[in-house]
């Protein structure tokens, strides 16, 4: 058993269990913490595959920034009565797991029965240098478009969450 297999076995098992927990826990904060565990175990899997920089980005941006956003939103909402509106038990008790199981069966049948192209011998540069070369030369235009997207999201988040001066004239519920 190689190191990669061991890493995938342990991290993959943790990842699967934490993902089930993240989806089916009623408590949103517990779900967010389970999501952190899932994301960190995925980072470990990326490390095992040899993509150190991607693992670092996964920890920094996903497990760091995105989940922190989640927890802040949970803290804000838990001070309001909206938590009762938002935090409801799963509906469609049986249908959801059945649909998920069917989707997984179809996907796994396609993966197992379908023939993947022959693997290329691992090699080639996976260093930060090679990633920068791809990102800033071949994918420069999508990279710049992404910065515009992030700016738009930033502005949208500020506009959506600030207090409106005209709030009183808005229709009340």
């Amino acid at each position, binding site marked *: 058993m190689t190191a990669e297999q061991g890493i995938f076995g342990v991290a993959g098992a943790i*990842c699967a269990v934490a993902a089930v927990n993240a989806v089916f826990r009623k408590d949103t904060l517990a779900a967010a913490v389970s999501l952190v565990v899932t994301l960190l175990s995925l980072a470990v899997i990326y490390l095992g595959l040899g993509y150190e920089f991607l693992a670092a980005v996964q920890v920094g*941006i996903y497990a760091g920034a995105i989940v922190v956003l989640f927890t802040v939103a949970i803290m804000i*909402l838990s001070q309001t009565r909206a938590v009762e509106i938002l935090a409801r038990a799963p509906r469609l008790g049986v249908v959801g797991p059945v649909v998920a199981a069917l989707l997984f069966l179809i996907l796994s049948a396609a993966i197992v029965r379908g023939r993947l192209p022959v693997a290329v011998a691992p090699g080639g540069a996976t260093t930060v240098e090679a990633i920068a070369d791809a990102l800033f030369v071949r994918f420069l235009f999508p990279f710049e478009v992404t910065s515009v997207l992030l700016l738009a999201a930033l502005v949208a988040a500020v506009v959506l969450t600030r207090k409106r001066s005209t709030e009183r004239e808005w229709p009340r519920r």
Partner: protein
Amino acid sequence: MPTTAYLLLGAFLFALGAAGVVTRSNALSMLVSVELMLNAVNLTFVASARRFAELDGVIVAFFVIAVAAAEVAVGLAIVVDIARRHVSVDVDKASDLAG
């Protein structure tokens, strides 16, 4: 390690996320499930990148992470805004009592 194992884990996470989006009525849990689906796709991209010894899959994973950050920022802002509107009545009552 065969690529199939990575792809199967990705398929499992994706199906789980889809189930969460369909069954949860809690907006925050739905966003958590969407994150799970995005990560499943990322894992598939990275495993394929490894199999073909190409960096393109990893680059796509970076873009997916950036898009996920934008999606979470806007999604959570919408959730907070919805919550604020639903509670505004109670807040006004409280201020009336304070006089």
